[in-house]
C-alpha cells in the first residue's frame, strides 16, 4: 500500500507536529503543505500526531481514505 497525504486546510492550524515526524513529506507554512514523499509508516505517524486531525491519508490504489488509527 502507498499512502498519499492530503491536508484538510480548513482544519489545519499549523501546529507542526507532522513536519517533525515526516519532514520530507510535509512543510508547515501558514498551513501544512505536502512537499514530498515518505514511507507509509511515517505518514501514518504524522497523521496520528496532528492534534487537529487535518491529515487525510488516501490509499493510492483504491482511492479510499485510510484510518491511521
Amino acid at each position, binding site marked *: 500500500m502507498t499512502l*498519499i*497525504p*492530503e*491536508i*484538510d*486546510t*480548513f*482544519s489545519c*492550524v*499549523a*501546529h*507542526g507536529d507532522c513536519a517533525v515526524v515526516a519532514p520530507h*513529506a510535509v512543510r508547515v*507554512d*501558514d498551513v501544512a*503543505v*505536502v*512537499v*514530498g*514523499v515518505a514511507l507509509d509508516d511515517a505518514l501514518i505517524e504524522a*497523521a*496520528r500526531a*496532528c*492534534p*487537529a*486531525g*487535518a*491529515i*487525510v491519508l488516501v490509499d493510492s490504489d483504491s482511492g479510499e*481514505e485510510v*484510518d*491511521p*488509527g
Partner: protein
Amino acid sequence: MGGGLAAQRCCETLRALGHAGPITIAGAEGSEPYDRPPLSKEGLAGAATEPRFRPRSWYAEHDVQLRLGAAAVRLRPGARTVELAGGERLRYDDLLVATGSRPVMLPALAGFANVQALRTRAQMRLGAALESARGADRVQELVLTDGSRIATDHVVVAVGVRPATEWLDASGLELRGIHTALPHVYAAGDVTGGGHWEAAARQGAGVARALLGLDPAPPAPPSFWSDQLGLRLQCVGEPAGAHATIAADAEGRGFEAVYHRDGRVSAVLLADRTPADLRAARRLLTPEPKLERSAA
C-alpha cells in the same frame, strides 16, 4: 507587542503572503517566541523538548527584528507609539496587541518559594477553598475552608489566567476580537479571551490577512486539544451550558461526548479517538471542509 503564538503566527503569515515590509516582535520575555502547552506536559515530565517555534536564525532569514525583554508599559495611539519599560518608545504603522495572559496567583500563596503557577485548571478538593498557607519562606501546610489541613512540599496553582493588558489601561481599549476601536491597532491571542492555542493561531493569521487587505479565512468553530496522561482530548464547538450525551468505550479510556443546545449539536468532545473521528465531529458543526490535495 507580545512574543507568543499569536505574534509568531501573524508574522509568519505576513511573510508567507508576501509582505516585505519591516516587522518587529517585541515582548517582555527574554527568549524567542515559544510554544507553551508542552511546558506543562512533556516539560514537567522531564522530556527534552524544543519549545521555540523557530530558531534564532529564522528571524534574521525572514527579516524580522526581535526586541526581547521589552515590556510595554503604555500605548500612545495618537502618536502611534508603544512606550517600553525604561522609557523607549517604539513607533508603529500597525500594531498587534498579543501580550497574552498571566496565571492567577492566590493571594494566600503569593511570595512563597515553593509555589508555582500553571496556566491550566485543576481541582484540588471539591467544596473546599484555600483559606491560608502556613510556612516561613516555603509553604509547609495548606488550610482549607472546611478546616482540613494538607501538608505539602510544593504547591502548584492552576486557577486560570487574566489578560496581560495592564499597559493598555490608560488607552481604554477593549479587546474582544482581532479588530479594535483604534485605527491601526489589532489584537490576537489570550488578550481577546480566546484562551486556546488554536484561537491564538487563527487570530494571528487573521490579523495578518487584515493588515494585507485580504478577505478573512472562513470562520471555524472554536476548538482545542490537550494531552493528559497519555490521553488525547479534542473538542470542537461550544460545550458550555449544553446537554451532553456520552458514549464511552467498553474498554480503555476513550469516549465521545456530543453536546446539544436548542436541538442542534453545539460541540463534540473526543477522548482517544482517531483523526477521522475528529474530522467527522467537525463536519457536524461546519459545512463540508475544503480538501486540498497537495502535489508531491
